[in-house]
């Protein structure tokens, strides 16, 4: 497995003389009782969050993202590595000495305390004078718009209101770091959207608070984070700005998890020979032609120029998002129409209406032996003609939208089954 790909080099971040608000150095967490050979819940994570920065850890369940957050909060003890807060080593310090605000998934409000007492909890633990506690509680409740609920018990509040109180309670102690563990996953879709906007407003109001935001929802990460770390199997596989990860994933997993890209295996042809043009997005990465295992070929750019995908000329994977695939009119010469793909033939195995448009699943390779789950997903443009199940179609790729990533055989689900490789002459232009 490739090492964690950290795009932003550590050097140069000390420019303003401030140490990072949170720094993890090679942190591993092994749960007690786990067998020695099993993989740790968190493996060798190095990450830094600068003051005022929001970093989202994005990954499926069991990817170690919550464990990473617990290691920062002090709820889990790292088996290796160090945790630093503002340059201070807190690895062996209890949570009470870290001064971090934590908001967890199910809010964890104290059910026996009224809203105001919940918010005051951290202030009283710090033995602040009564008048100061009252003033700060009022201030925090006002910030989250919950002043009129101060005398209520948590169970009398809705999920969204409870979440606001949990945030007010965490911020009442004026932490330099706020940790949010799947804070919106218990809310319904509409409330979640409102809370994302509210969190974005909070971020603007608290420009010095560093936030670590753990989520499995890519839209929350894209909306709130300055940088996103993609986690998988206890490891950080990719780290960068939302824009970098979305447009230049350097790992097949990043491409499939962030934006649900189709992963098409293929073999690299001579670099730049086919087109030699540059993309609108990144002038430094030329387009290369990849002969796909499923038949046909695609022009694609390399996601991360530093990776070795382009160097070997060997077996690679092309990541294409469903909305970048186009269904070409039947009968026309595919080479001309496709722009950056040719000979991508397949059979429609399912059509799903999603309100804003249709999603097709197309088994590539001209055969229908791939099941619907293994076929590529294609999002039709609005008002495009919708084919029927069983129709033979030819697909094109929007120019500049196909990205070459190193092949990773361990990712299932979105992979297209490899059909016998056709003769190169018949497939390329």
């Amino acid at each position, binding site marked *: 497995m490739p090492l964690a790909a950290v795009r932003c080099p550590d050097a140069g971040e000390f420019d303003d003389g401030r140490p990072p608000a949170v720094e993890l150095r090679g942190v591993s967490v092994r749960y*007690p*009782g786990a067998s020695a050979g099993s993989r740790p819940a968190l493996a060798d994570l190095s990450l830094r969050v600068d003051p005022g920065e929001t970093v989202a850890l994005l990954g499926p369940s069991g990817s170690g993202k919550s464990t990473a957050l617990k290691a920062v*909060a*002090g*709820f889990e003890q790292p088996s290796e590595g160090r945790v630093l807060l503002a340059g201070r080593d807190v690895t062996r310090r*209890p*949570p*009470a000495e*870290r*001064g*971090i*605000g*934590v908001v*967890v998934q*199910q809010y*964890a409000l*104290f*059910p*026996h305390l009224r809203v105001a007492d919940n918010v005051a*909890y*951290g202030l009283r*633990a*710090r033995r602040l004078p009564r008048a100061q506690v009252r003033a700060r509680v009022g201030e925090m409740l006002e910030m989250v718009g919950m002043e009129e609920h101060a005398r209520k*018990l948590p*169970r009398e509040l809705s999920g969204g209101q409870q979440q606001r109180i949990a945030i007010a*309670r*965490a911020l009442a*102690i004026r932490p330099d770091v706020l940790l949010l563990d799947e804070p919106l996953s218990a809310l319904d879709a509409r409330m979640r959207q409102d809370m994302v906007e509210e969190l974005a407003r909070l971020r603007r109001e608290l420009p010095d608070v560093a936030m670590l935001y753990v989520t499995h929802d890519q839209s929350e990460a894209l909306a709130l984070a300055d940088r996103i770390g993609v986690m998988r199997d206890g490891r950080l596989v990719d780290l960068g700005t939302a824009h970098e990860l979305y447009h230049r994933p350097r790992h097949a997993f990043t491409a499939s998890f962030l934006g649900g890209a189709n992963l098409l295996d293929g073999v690299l042809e001579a670099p730049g020979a086919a087109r030699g043009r540059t993309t609108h997005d990144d002038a430094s990465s030329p387009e290369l032609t990849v002969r796909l295992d499923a038949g046909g070929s695609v022009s694609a750019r390399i996601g991360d120029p530093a990776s070795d995908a382009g160097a070997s000329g060997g077996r690679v994977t092309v990541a294409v998002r469903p909305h970048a695939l186009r269904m070409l009119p039947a009968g026309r010469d595919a080479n001309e129409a496709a722009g950056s793909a040719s000979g991508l033939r397949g059979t429609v195995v399912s059509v799903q209406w999603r309100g804003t448009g249709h999603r097709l699943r197309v088994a590539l390779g001209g055969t229908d032996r791939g099941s619907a789950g293994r076929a590529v997903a294609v999002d039709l443009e609005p008002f495009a003609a919708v084919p029927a199940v069983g129709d033979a179609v030819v697909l094109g790729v929007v120019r500049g939208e196909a990205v070459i990533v190193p092949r990773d055989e361990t990712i299932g689900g979105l992979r297209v089954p490899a059909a016998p490789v056709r003769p190169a002459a018949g497939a390329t232009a």
Partner: protein
Amino acid sequence: MLLHSPSTRTAVKAALIAVLALLLGVPLLAVVLAAFAGSWNGVWPSDPTFAHLADALSADNLASISVSLQTAFIASIVAVAVGAWAALAARSAGGRAAKAIDAAFHLPAAVPSVVVGLGLLAAFSRPPLTLNGTATIVVIAQTTLVLAFSYSTVAGAAEVLDPALEQVAGSLGAGSLRVLLTVRLPLLLPSIGAALGLAFALCMGELGATIMVYPASWRTLPVSIFALADRGSLFLAAADTLVLIASTVAVLALIARLRGRTTVR
């Protein structure tokens, strides 16, 4: 099993009432009738009288009631305090230690009460620690016997306590003592109240171990009732039983009222 037809439901209800009446109603009714009976030769008792009840509330018996109440109070409070502490400790320790504590505290429930009494006699009848013949040994016997119930009642509640609550309290700056006093104990209060009620009721009726260890100066009500019944004074024993039930129910009602005030959920 879900019953849908009204006639089956009625039949099941009737069967339940019949079983309950046989198990609980008949013995209780017999005790009440016997307590007020002058004689009982036919199917029903005759010559109703309050003499037995007056006897049961005489000075001698009032001392027994007082002994029973004192023993039950001290034993149940000690048992709940130790049980709750052990339950919280087991939960914090986790893993193998938790299992060991669990097993140790459930042991008294598995051992017959007579064995507990015999064990205490054997252990505390000679120096360095001679408790035989004191009230303390009775309290210890009852504490030991109800410990398992108070432990498992609190442990059950501690088990479902959300660990996130304690973690968040810690992250807000609360030390472990503060977390215990402001989060864990308040949330466990309902189960602690329940454990107290259960322990008290069990102590009030305890006979097996008490009869092995009690000194003449510290005779609980069940021991008196057993002695009366043994001597054939069934009507007097029944009157004493009524007093025992009444005092237990009165204390349980008091505990329930206190619990009602503390319950938050």
